[in-house]
């Protein structure tokens, strides 16, 4: 929806030219969305790790005697050893492969990123390669896991200067996305990737097939709304698209307000009860006029233009 609300994406829009020569608009993901996605992913990883650990303990038949049995050369010992190996492999994979696995998929996003509606893309407009995904995720180790484990160990002991150094280190990487315009973190910089919004929009209904839009005739009151050239000339594309949003949202108070504003502007007497048909007719005729002019190469951005 963000494209319908330009103010929300101000400063984050980038244009990328595809090989077909289409200028494609990308919106760089907001730092908030990325932080939320990361928090969610870390929570998922923690749950996977804890879940796997509990499951393996359960399979091992309880925590007790694990240490002594694992050192025996019996069949039970071998089985326990195998479980411990499995545990090491699983922990390593959850920590290092979780992000890579999902970002290499067709969505280019982890579960957290999907929930936040964002994804990874190559910054140069080319393919997103496995090497890029690898590079950006290997750097996560110093950006995130190392300072976290350092801070955890520092908070327990009296590390003094080392603790302060760890905090400074952590801040350098955490704040890294705040000091460049594309919100790149260090891993993105190394890999040549960025995180962009992944659009998911429904196709909204056609606006010009109702009777009010077609003929300017209201179904409820039978009133005919015909607007002259002068009455349509007051507004531009910006107002048209605001009107489109108001019509699609179809909230009564908003319709009344906009109806009044337009009537005042074009010198009509605002009645009540038929706002929607009036606005539909005005919308269709204004859009017809603006689109006709557009084909002639004349554009009117807003009411000031």
């Amino acid at each position, binding site marked *: 929806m963000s*494209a319908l609300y330009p103010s929300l994406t101000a400063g984050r829009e980038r244009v990328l030219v595809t090989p077909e020569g289409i200028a494609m608009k990308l919106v760089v993901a907001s730092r908030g969305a990325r932080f939320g996605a990361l928090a969610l992913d870390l929570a998922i990883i923690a749950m996977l790790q804890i879940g796997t650990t509990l499951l393996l303990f359960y399979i091992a038949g309880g925590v007790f005697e694990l240490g002594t049995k694992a050192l025996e050369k019996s069949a039970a010992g071998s089985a326990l050893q195998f479980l411990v190996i499995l545990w090491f492999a699983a922990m390593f994979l959850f920590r290092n492969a979780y992000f890579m696995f999902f970002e290499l998929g*067709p969505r280019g996003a982890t579960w957290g990123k999907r929930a936040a509606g964002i994804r990874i893309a190559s910054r140069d407009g080319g393919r997103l390669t496995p090497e890029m995904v690898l590079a950006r995720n*290997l750097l996560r180790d*110093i950006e995130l896991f190392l300072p976290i484990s350092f801070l955890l160990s520092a908070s327990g002991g009296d590390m003094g200067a080392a603790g302060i150094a760890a905090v400074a280190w952590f801040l350098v990487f955490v704040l890294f996305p705040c000091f460049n315009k594309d919100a790149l973190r260090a891993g993105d910089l190394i890999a*040549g990737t960025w995180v962009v919004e992944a*659009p998911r929009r429904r*196709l909204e209904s*056609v606006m010009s097939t109702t009777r009010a839009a077609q003929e300017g005739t209201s179904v409820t009151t039978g009133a005919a709304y015909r607007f002259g050239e002068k009455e349509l000339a007051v507004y531009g594309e910006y107002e048209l698209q605001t009107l489109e*949003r108001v019509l699609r949202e179809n909230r009564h108070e908003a319709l009344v307000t906009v109806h009044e504003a337009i009537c005042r502007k074009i010198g009509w007497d605002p009645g009540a009860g038929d706002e929607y048909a009036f606005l539909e007719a005005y919308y269709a005729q204004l859009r017809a006029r603006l689109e006709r002019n557009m084909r002639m190469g004349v554009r009117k951005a807003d009411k000031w233009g």
Partner: protein
Amino acid sequence: MAGTLSTASGDRAIEAAALRSDRFRLEREADWMRLEAIVRRMEANRLGKIPDEDLLALPVLYRTVASSLSVARETSLDAATLAYLEGLVQRAWFLVYGPRTGFAAWLRRFLGGGLPAAVRAIWFDILIALAVMVAGAAVGWLLVASDPSWYYSLVPSQFTDARVPGASREVLHDTLFGNKDEAALSVFAAYLFSNNAQVSILAFALGFAFGIPSLMLLVQNLATLGAMMWLYHGQGLLWDFGGWISVHGTTELFAILLAGAAGLHIGRAIAFPGSRAVMQAAAEAGRRAATVMAGVVQMLVVAAMLEGFARQLVDNTAGRYTIGLSMLAIWCGYFFGLRRSDAGAA
């Protein structure tokens, strides 16, 4: 919903549309819907479950919808439709130009030439890292030789069981030989792997700070080795210690060398981008270094298996050297000897 109209009522809808731009949209909507359905399915599933005709139709539909978008931008002021098309074209673009190779294809290309090529590309960094590692080992040795108390700060406590300055020849000899019956070795190997892999990922990632911390990490790790070499040398066991460590060490140290060199490669690209923009230099170096790192992780798996099994099964120094040096020869041959034509490797 306009999207679910049948053809007959669809035609009526087109006639009913008051605006030329809406008629344009209604005429093409079926294509857009079909593309969206394919895209949605591809995003949700693995590629294998998509019917062939949809896979074939994807690039064609993508171009059709992209051209719809171009036309709509010039002729339509329907913000919702434009936003929908922008989004749909973008999603399709991600798939059409997305990572097309599956994991198996990537692995084949990676092992068949991508990895050796990336290793050769950072040869200069490998030389620097090698020099730093040798220097690190020498520093470790010399420090402990001048003052044995250094041993305790250089060697992590997990190795200071029996292996401490002043230990007798027998005790040290026993740490190298006769451990055949020790259980839980495979667990130890798994632990070593995840530990070493984390260390080498660290060595790589630290390269971001101009490569200097990577080099410090190499010095620190090799100083440990140097200190232990001094310890065994004192009891005349240096040759046997060399065999003991070479079984997995040639692979593991090689892997750590490559990880440090990969980090250094990135650090150098950021510090000295040359004629390229810093961002571009960093991204190019980063991808090359990441390829090397994928190889490093695989080497560490091999190293852990050698350490966990081969070292205990081969209980004599000559046999151990044979394994260690063969592994070294295999890695060198693979990385530097295997020079296919670049066309074939790419």
